[in-house]
């Protein structure tokens, strides 16, 4: 009797598991993310981890960037460009409400943009708004932007996560309780574990077919793989262990999406160091580096070698990998010419991602070949930001991937972390800002890439690939990452 009772219990438990498994498969999705965001307000911080949760899911802008990197209408259903490109008139969608019930009005747009550029603003991309002179809201559904110069990329800029529209009533608490207009509402954040979003029943557009989305923080690549295999997560949108991809490709339960990101992975050089101010030394470093060996050895072949700071899939890209090809003999000659002694020490600080830690081991070995003595120092992200990116800029070399789209402008910034100062480059960037003709812009971008390559500003390594491993039945996730996002608007189980 007891035995039978036990058997029944087990049977019931199994049945329940099966049921919950099926229910889980139909209505929710869990994604593994590597980094936990510091907070959830995309308009108040640079970390990609924020946008990778809230962009397009919780928050929306006037325009949006789609999976192909094209600008699409967002909260603005249409717009008119007047006055020779100096006035943009946006018409907002009707019936858009924030998650707290407030109706979206033109004054909210005015508030959001003025908040973004305000003195006290923490917005990480104020440059996106630099062409905007004034924001007017003549009626509830019309927004007029007056520009101080022509800005060819304005519509694209407004599609960034840093330019999303927030509700004045909740703007101050978006860091912990984000309130937007998107298809998902924020539900819960268990620090160190997961962030949950739930479907927004009042969404203006096509409602998501997922009832709930969970972003699970798993910082270890091996643990992510184990979680996916165990069914704890349904997708790893950006796999940290490229060596495991072959195994998933052979597994019929999973689909592998191989795409690109906007991440130029570079060996940044600290131009504040006298040694690295010498262009011959920087060129020698670039000549010493075998990009293909890094892509193969560190990323198992995922990634495209680059010769300057630009994404290869962009129409404005020009292949400059030939400017300073792998040539250790030439590197040695340049170092001798510059009077750099054999055994000169360089400090290479490496943040946690695979591309940096593994790439660092290969770069160090390659630089040793031409006579440098490289000390590798593994650092965590907090240390990297406080020691390398900000503060004293205490590093000679570091490896990092710049994942913002079209970010060649960082080389024109004053006091940026690698400390490159070139008035001619700054002038060129200012010129590009005023050009709206795409063909002309592309020509100028090519010129800019050439300057950086000729100057060997940094060691240009490779374009970071985006490799996602997803349960086969889960469709609608992005293959490429034209902007930092895990847009789940179109995600569905089939």
């Amino acid at each position, binding site marked *: 009797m007891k035995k039978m009772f036990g058997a029944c219990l087990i049977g019931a438990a199994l049945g329940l598991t099966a049921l919950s498994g099926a229910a889980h498969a139909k209505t929710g999705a869990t994604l593994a993310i590597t980094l936990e965001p510091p907070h959830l307000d995309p308009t108040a911080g640079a970390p990609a981890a924020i946008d990778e949760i809230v962009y397009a899911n919780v928050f929306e802008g006037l325009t949006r960037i789609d999976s192909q990197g094209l600008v699409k209408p967002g909260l603005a259903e249409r717009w008119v460009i007047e006055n020779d490109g100096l006035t943009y008139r946006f018409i907002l969608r009707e019936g858009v409400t924030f998650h707290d019930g407030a109706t979206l009005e033109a004054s909210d747009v005015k508030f959001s943009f003025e908040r973004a550029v305000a003195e006290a603003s923490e917005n990480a991309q104020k440059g996106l708004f630099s062409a905007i002179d004034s924001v007017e809201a003549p009626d509830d559904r019309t927004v007029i932007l007056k520009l101080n110069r022509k800005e060819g990329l304005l519509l694209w800029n407004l599609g960034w996560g840093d330019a999303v529209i927030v509700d004045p009533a909740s703007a101050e608490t978006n860091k912990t309780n984000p309130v937007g207009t998107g298809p998902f509402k924020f539900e819960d954040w268990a620090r160190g574990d997961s962030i949950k979003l739930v479907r927004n029943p009042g969404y203006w557009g096509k409602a998501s077919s997922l009832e709930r989305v969970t972003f699970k923080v798993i910082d270890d*690549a*091996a643990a992510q793989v184990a979680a996916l295999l165990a069914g704890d997560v349904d997708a790893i949108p950006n796999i940290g262990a490229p*060596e495991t991809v072959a195994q998933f490709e052979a597994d019929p339960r999973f689909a592998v999406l191989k795409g690109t990101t906007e991440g130029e992975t570079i060996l940044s050089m600290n131009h504040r160091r006298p040694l690295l101010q010498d262009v011959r030394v920087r060129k020698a470093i670039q000549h010493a580096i075998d990009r293909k*060996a890094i892509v193969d*050895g560190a990323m198992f072949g995922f990634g495209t070698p680059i010769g300057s700071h630009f994404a290869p899939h962009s129409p404005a890209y020009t292949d400059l990998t030939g400017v300073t090809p792998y040539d250790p003999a030439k590197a040695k000659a340049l170092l001798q010419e510059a009077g750099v002694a054999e055994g000169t020490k360089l400090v290479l600080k490496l943040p946690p991602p695979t591309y940096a*830690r*593994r790439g660092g*081991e290969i770069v160090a070995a390659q630089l040793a070949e031409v006579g440098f003595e490289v000390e*590798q120092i*593994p650092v965590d992200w907090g240390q990297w930001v406080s020691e390398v990116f900000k503060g004293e800029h205490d590093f000679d070399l570091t490896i990092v991937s710049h994942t913002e789209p079209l970010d060649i402008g960082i080389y024109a910034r004053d006091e940026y972390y690698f400390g490159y100062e070139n008035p001619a480059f700054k002038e060129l960037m200012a010129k590009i800002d005023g050009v709206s003709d795409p063909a002309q812009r592309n020509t100028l971008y090519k010129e800019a890439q050439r300057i950086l390559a000729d100057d060997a500003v940094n060691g240009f390594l490779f374009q970071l690939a985006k490799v996602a491993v997803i349960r086969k039945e889960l469709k609608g996730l992005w293959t490429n990452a034209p902007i930092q996002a895990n847009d789940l608007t179109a995600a569905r189980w089939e």
Partner: protein
Amino acid sequence: MKARVPQLWIGGALTGVILLAAILSLFWTPYGIDQQSIADRLQGPSAGHWLGTDMFGRDILSRILGGAGTALTVGLAAIALGLAGGLPLGLAAAMNRDGPADMLIARGADLIFAFPALLSAVLIAAVHGPGAINVVVAVGIFNIAVFARVVRGAALSVMARPFLRAALAMGRPWPSVAVKHLLPNIAGVIAVQATIQFAVAILAEAGLSYLGLGVKPPNPSWGKMLADAQTLLYVDPRQAIFPGLAILWAVLGLNLLGDGLRDFLDPRLRKIRAV
């Protein structure tokens, strides 16, 4: 005698091999310890690479040998630090039995035991950054407490014996008695403890390097090799097997050697054998 304490000989042989490997690695390894060849990565064992190559195409045998060097260096340094502090403290405590110095040393040891060595090492690494020195300092300080206690206990039992009292009664000064009569009689106990602490230090080094807080790349470490192998488990399990075996070999060898030494040096057991 061989048959009576087989652990001693097995442990000694295992440890001897590691010791030889470590010494060998200082002068010669089949390939450079950090010599990469991306094109030859993740190869299986072959005539060219006896244990295969890792993900950067480095020779695994060379790195295992180099890892033995790292493990032994860290272990020896931690033992040396522990003895340098623990031996005088332990002797001082024994001679000042139940006095203020004894109390102070005993409570100090309690304090150190309250922090597991591995956690202290993580703490030091957080302040000082990763490096082999963290392991040495953390395990070394832990060892000071271990040796102080062991030395105190052993010294007290020896001090109660007549020959030592006689030496003192003859008017020999304390330091001379300690060196001439006390130390030789507690050396065995210290040796046993040292081999066991050696194994602890090797495990701590491997553990911290596994977490990325131990030796800095490109220096070889068995623990770091294990960490690198983790995501490759499904692709190439050999990557984890060889460093894992090396750790097993070293720790098993040292523990057997410690066990064997204890049995061999234990006077009670010796008496039984003599009968």
